[in-house]
């Protein structure tokens, strides 16, 4: 018996779950448990009540609707990874999920659980931020939508209120003429990465770069947008020959000090290398997608 004693709450609806959040002073939400249960086992977290979402209906629905992919908060990471409709709508999602721990962990771990946990090294929060996604949170006064930009506050800390529960995650469909890449470096496959980068790059009709969206994980207290890189990509002169110097602009976001895995200087170099790789891969895929689209148009 490793976790300390807690009250186990098994709500049948989201309203019951929120009521339990309100009723107890100190609650945690159990979704897939792959991040929560280790903290319980080590008694790093000693909540008064554990609210298990497994019987709340509707939390594992996944649907692609218009410009958005709606993912129920309790959706298993493995189910999202294997969903072909989601992959067709935004291939960056599957590529990112392949880097999340191991398949055995993704079998249980959930999409909403990872995002609400907000580990700054985790891949899914970084993906959400890169894509300008959003989440839906249910609280005592109903549901509200939170933009990814406003969600992540600090290490393991979000702007979700203590009486709210994350119920849905929304990723945009990848725009046309857009390439994508998720890349990271970890000392062992499946470990949290020393640094990781999610990127999309969208081309204008003439094949030049229109804009890019990039976010990094593992480099500061939250996932972070690489604004300096994005600004440089907006420059008319931005093209693949300048990717190395543009990537170098990412280095300043690193605030993680020297730690047991690597020095801060190493992490900065690593991030720059990953950004350059992400830009090149995204560029290549964007070009291929734009070409495939043009040839389809010519054929039809």
């Amino acid at each position, binding site marked *: 018996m490793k976790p300390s004693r807690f009250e186990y709450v098994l709500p049948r609806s989201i309203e019951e779950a929120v009521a339990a959040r309100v009723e107890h002073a100190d609650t945690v939400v159990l979704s897939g448990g792959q991040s929560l249960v280790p903290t319980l086992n080590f008694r790093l977290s000693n909540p008064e009540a554990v609210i298990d979402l497994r019987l709340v209906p509707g939390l594992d629905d996944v649907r692609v609707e218009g410009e958005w992919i709606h993912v129920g908060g309790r959706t298993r990471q493995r189910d999202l990874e294997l969903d072909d409709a989601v992959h067709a709508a935004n291939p960056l999602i599957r590529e990112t999920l392949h880097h999340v721990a191991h398949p055995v962990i993704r079998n249980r771990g959930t999409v909403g659980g990872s995002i609400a946990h907000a580990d700054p090294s985790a891949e899914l929060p970084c993906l959400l931020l890169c894509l300008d996604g959003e989440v839906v949170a249910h609280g005592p006064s109903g549901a509200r939508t939170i933009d990814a930009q406003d969600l992540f506050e600090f290490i393991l800390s979000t702007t979700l209120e203590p009486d709210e529960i994350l119920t849905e995650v929304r990723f945009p469909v990848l725009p046309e003429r857009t390439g994508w890449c998720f890349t990271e470096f970890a000392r*062992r*496959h499946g470990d949290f990465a020393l640094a990781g980068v999610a990127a999309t790059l969208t081309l204008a009709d003439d094949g030049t770069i229109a804009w890019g969206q990039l976010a990094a994980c593992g480099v500061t207290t939250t996932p972070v947008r690489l604004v300096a890189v994005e600004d440089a990509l907006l420059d008319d002169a931005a093209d693949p020959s300048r990717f190395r110097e543009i990537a170098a602009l990412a280095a300043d976001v690193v605030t993680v000090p020297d730690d047991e895995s690597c020095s801060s200087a190493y992490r900065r170099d690593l991030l720059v290398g990953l950004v350059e790789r992400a830009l090149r891969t995204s560029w290549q895929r964007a070009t291929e997608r734009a070409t495939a689209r043009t040839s389809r148009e010519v054929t039809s």
Partner: protein
Amino acid sequence: MTSSTYRSPVNDDPTLDISLVVNGRPVEASVSPRLLLSDFLRHHLGLTGTHVGCEHGVCGACTVHIDGRAARSCLTLAVQLDGATVRTVEDLEGPDGSLSPVQAAFRDCHGLQCGFCTPGFLMSVTALLDEDPDVADASDAEIRERIAGNLCRCTGYQGIVAATRQAAETLRDAKEQADGTTQG
């Protein structure tokens, strides 16, 4: 029907009733909410084949199948399993006690030394080959990546990689033979 009466001597937690299927047998038990599935299997049901290593999801020694998918039993509360189906390493052998293709391959290829990590590897590899029969054609590097969620401190993994490939080939041959018989 197995009914568990085991109570930990060191706590008087309130308990919850759960019913689940373990290795094909229905099980009913009263458990504390903070009891981990790994400890439930070992202490309540006596299924000590499931090993407990790191207890935070890193080593993979406690891997079992929950509703047909490999999962860490140390990262799951027993109460979450109410209504679920669990399969442990004890269920891999045939009714006559013969080794499963994955177990046989681990023996043939020296895929174990001290044996502590082996039940977790057997469950992970069994699930992997159920999902993806093409592992037989994968490179060693790919197989290493696919089994990276389980740690072995003895073998250096060569024997485990070889066992995974041999089991994949055995299962594929068996499937091809079965398909051929059906079609013929």
